């Protein structure tokens, strides 16, 4: 694996008033890898994603995509720079069809002309098994299909860095396995992935490294087996006393 750093976070902190959500978290994401992020609810995982994608501003610290400092860059520019993301609670454009949802991402995030985006989006729909729902109103999709749509829409923006926020939640084991295979193929295509997930076996199957957050602080980072064996991680995340 190449060790070129694609995303660099240094001492990233976030507070909402007196509530400290993240405290001086630092980590690197290497180009081409899958970094899994674990942590109990309220650990600050989604807040970290929101700061990377620009939805919220950090209270302190620095985030860089390659050599570019992201501070002050609005979300739409970060997307055009190559940061794609999904949301934990799907946010489809419910007044549009599934296909049109992807067109927005391909045309604006991916910078494609609309006619170029047609075939590209059709392919992404096929990849994410939404082709038969291409012309269905996204507001009427099932939860599973909404999660697929989140992933498909993020892919349609042709990201260099893909932020996946709990996309396996609510899926059956078979569906999770298929999703892992899909994530692996996206990685093999050269897309770097950071994946927040509670479905541990899905994450373990594809992640090159894991990072664990607890109460806004990084408590472990490293190879998946090493991190899972970490007594602090066992105590915090799995409730197992060492």
């Amino acid at each position: 694996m190449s060790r070129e750093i694609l995303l660099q976070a240094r001492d990233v902190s976030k507070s909402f008033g007196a509530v400290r959500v993240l405290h001086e978290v630092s980590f690197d994401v290497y180009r081409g890898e899958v970094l899994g992020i674990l942590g109990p609810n309220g650990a600050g995982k989604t807040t970290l994603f929101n700061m990377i994608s620009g939805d919220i501003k950090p209270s302190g610290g620095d985030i860089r995509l390659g050599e570019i400092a992201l501070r002050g860059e609005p979300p739409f520019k970060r997307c055009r720079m190559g940061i794609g993301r999904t949301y934990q609670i799907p946010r489809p454009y419910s007044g549009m069809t599934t296909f049109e949802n992807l067109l927005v991402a391909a045309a604006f995030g991916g910078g494609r002309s609309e006619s170029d985006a047609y075939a590209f989006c059709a392919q992404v729909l096929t990849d994410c098994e939404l082709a038969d729902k291409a012309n269905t109103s996204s507001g009427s999709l099932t939860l599973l299909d909404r999660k697929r749509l989140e992933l498909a829409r993020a892919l349609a923006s042709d990201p260099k860095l893909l932020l996946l926020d709990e996309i396996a939640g609510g899926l059956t084991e078979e569906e999770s396995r298929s999703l892992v295979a899909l994530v692996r193929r996206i990685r093999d295509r050269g897309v770097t992935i950071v994946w927040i997930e509670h479905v541990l076996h899905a994450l373990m199957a594809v992640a090159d490294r894991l990072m664990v957050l607890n109460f806004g602080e990084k408590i472990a980072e490293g190879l998946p087996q090493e991190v899972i064996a970490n007594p602090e991680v066992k105590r915090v995340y799995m409730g197992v006393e060492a």
Partner: protein
Amino acid sequence: MTSVPLSPVSHAPALPQVMVRRQTASGRIAMVLFLLAVVALAAMPWWAKTGTIRMVLELCCYIAVAQMWNMLAGYAGLVSVGQQAFMGAAGYALFVLAQTFGVNPFLAIFIALLVPAFLAVPCYMLLHRLDGPYFAIGTWVVAEVFRLVASNMGFLNAGAGMSLNVMKEYSLLERNIAMSLLCALMILLTIGGSYWFLRSRYGLALIAMRDNPVAAASQGVNVPRLRFMIYIAAAVGCGLAGAVYSMAQLRINPPSAFDPMWANVAIFIVMVGGIASIEGVLIGSLIYFIADRWFGQYGASYFVVLGVMTVFVALYARGGIWGAVSKRWDVHWFPIRRHLIYKTEERP
């Protein structure tokens, strides 16, 4: 989920053969009817009496203002109750240009549109910091400020207002021809222009922004700029309606130029006809126009009925009349959907 091979997205040969259908049969029929309506508007002097032209002009102004409000509230999520600010500003600009500076009034209408366009910029810079109801209140305050400024400017003849005496230089036929052409142009620009915009890639972005601005921004849509563009365009569209309406009235004063009734009318038309649809604006405008002709004599009680209708629709039929129709029958007079069709046999 079953495993499906993921094609390398950057390699064109792997992409499926697809086509996208944009038009529908009802859309084609409606397009022909729309163009015929525009031609009929332009040709009014040859088939309509002066009184009819005045009434149609009023209807066209309702349609234009309501469609601009529809673009603001129905698509951009900007609920304004102060678009009359730009109607009045353009109306006054027309009167000053034509009456004070001697510019040809029919040319002055178009020059006057620069005024709402320029005024909308600082207004938006101020208002965009406000959210939801605060934005709405802010737009109303801006309109009131405009009215008070106009009421106190000697240059605009203050509260007494101005008359467009230069129109006496033109014959009735000339005025009717000009008014008819302006009606056609106003409908072409506001309805045709909105349709063209909604069918463009920016229309996609606009609907995405309406449905979920946070997600739209994270998919590359420049939400603040799009909102700004819509606000300016709506100011110009309302300005055109205001200038044409004032020209037809031949007189302008602050209460009529900045009449908040225009905001009420636009809200009624869009809510009852169907928000976020051009069809709804056309239906709502016709309803209001007919209701105004038939029941306007009843004054306050008539407005109460209109208000109750709006509340009823907001509570029980949020899509308005057109929303109910399109839910029952899958027809679209102004289709903006993109229907994907796989051409190859490999389609799953």
